[in-house]
């Protein structure tokens, strides 16, 4: 028997997911269990609409969630979790971060959610989104300009930095293939390392990095000298590479403004986490 007005009952089910869950577990009352499940999904639907701004930042993640039939169940779960955590009034940036964090946990903790490409695409789009908030290093003006004339010994003492926000991530499947090909076209794509770069004008670029580029760039942390970067890259598998090859790569990376060089450590900014 429903003890209060139907509107209040529906409102409580939507605003108090634990109450709805208790009704579903009890499987009693005047409301059909299938309608209770639909009510739960309707709550997810409302939450989904309240996250329409995610289309802008996570378009492929959302498309995959939809294509795998996870969209409404996910947002229904997320609604319950965010209510329980008191997250009803988050700032837009917090809201996006909370969504991405919750979805990643769901994918990692529930085998049924391990759909091809979903985790990779989520992480990829999260990197791009987070990159948009990162700011440029202030010490770019102190950077060494004439690299070609520099002796090898002095070159080894330089400190490579990323003058503009840059990050790298390795994926079991190439997330950009999913973005480029609707219909889960990236399922068969291979392991890949991507570099995320924020340009001075604020735009973002994604670079596909080969093994050598990834090994060298991943050793750059804004405090290490070139000699340490090379040593680390050798430890990472580039034992046979010649010094000239390292220097060529680093000079080319500087020419492309992916990295810049400081003369002294005191000029180096704190490394980004």
């Amino acid at each position: 028997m429903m003890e209060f007005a139907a509107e209040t009952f529906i409102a409580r089910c939507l605003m108090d997911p634990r109450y709805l869950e208790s009704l579903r577990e009890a499987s009693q009352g005047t409301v059909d269990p299938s309608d209770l499940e639909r009510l739960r999904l309707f709550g997810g639907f409302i939450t989904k609409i309240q996250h329409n701004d995610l289309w802008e930042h996570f378009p492929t993640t959302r498309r995959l969630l939809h294509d795998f039939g996870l969209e409404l169940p996910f947002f229904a779960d997320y609604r319950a979790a965010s209510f329980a955590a008191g997250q009803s009034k988050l700032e837009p940036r917090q809201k996006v971060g909370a969504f991405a964090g919750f979805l990643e946990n769901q994918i990692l903790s529930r085998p049924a959610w391990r759909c091809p490409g979903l985790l990779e695409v989520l992480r990829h789009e999260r990197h791009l989104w987070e990159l948009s908030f990162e700011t440029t290093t202030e010490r770019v003006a102190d950077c060494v300009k004439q690299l070609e004339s520099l002796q090898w010994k002095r070159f080894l003492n330089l400190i490579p930095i990323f003058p503009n926000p840059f990050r790298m991530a390795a994926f079991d499947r190439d997330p950009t293939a999913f973005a480029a090909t609707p219909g889960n076209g990236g399922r068969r794509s291979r392991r890949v390392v991507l570099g995320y770069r924020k340009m001075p004008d604020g735009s973002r670029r994604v670079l596909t990095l080969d093994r050598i580029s990834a090994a060298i760039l991943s050793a750059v942390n804004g405090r290490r000298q070139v000699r340490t970067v090379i040593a680390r890259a050798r430890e990472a598998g580039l034992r046979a590479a010649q010094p000239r090859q390292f220097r060529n790569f680093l000079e080319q990376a500087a020419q492309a403004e992916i990295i810049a060089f400081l003369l002294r450590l005191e000029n180096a900014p704190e490394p980004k986490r």
Partner: protein
Amino acid sequence: MLKAASYYFPRSAEPGSVGARYNHVAIMPVAFPQQETPLVGLAYSKYVPNLITAKPDAIDYVEIPFELLVHDPSVATIGEKIPIVLHCATLSIAGSVPCPEARIQEIQSWERRTATPWLGEHLAFITAEREAAGDYAEPYAPGEPYNIGYTVSPPMNQEVVARVAANFVRYSERITVPILLENGPLYFRIPSSTMTQTDFIQAICDQTDMELLLDLAHFHITSQTMGFDAEQELDKLPLERVVEVHISGVDEQQSGSWDNHAVRAPESVRRLFDQVLERVTPRAVTLEYNWSSAFPRAIVLEELARTKESIRNQRVRLAPPDHSVTALPQ
């Protein structure tokens, strides 16, 4: 030719708010034109201003939610280029909790500022009484009603018919322009309902002079959930009351149909639209493709063209026969 309706100087807003920047901006809204054929518009999304700039003749008006204008009054400046139709999800007209007076006054303000020809509101509730809800584990807003933050179709019974009729009359006395009520989608069987949604709408129309905003995607979704033939049921609606039509997409998920303003309308919705045009001539047809700011412009333009073509085809069918005949020889 479109004419400017009036100058309006917005009321003061809190210092530093988005609205404050527009305190001293004279908004000169373009009036909604009188026309025999339905006008075609778009629900506001971030892409709409650029579309209007690139294709000034693509749409006749833009539909804007009142709630968006409260959040960002600068959106209203688009009304200097193109007529605005005001949409609303605030009155909770089917609910038992009255809309706060301050909100009604804000709606009145935006009604004047936008020169909207009517106010589209949902036949739904948004708030509900909390007192009788039993033990509540999380009193995050003690003493306040539940605020769902989204429109929900109400129980369909005589008690709610009477409530909607009373609220409609009460709010119509406060709002100068006509209030159109929009049919909501049913995603589950609403408890305490004793009639179909069509009968529910008809019963309200019998008690009031309410006019309708017919959302065809909602109607399609309701038909799927409740298991009726949408095309047959459509004829049972008081279509002569329809002033505005909404067209949008539908999503099939979890064995159900769901509203989706991020995809184009399915053929089923298009067939319903043609059927409506065979029966009546609404004043406005709004395409609601406003959930994704990245909605492809090419699809928007295709959908607009298709909508206009449907209207044109219907007018050709309804055109009076040509009675001019060559005079017979004496």
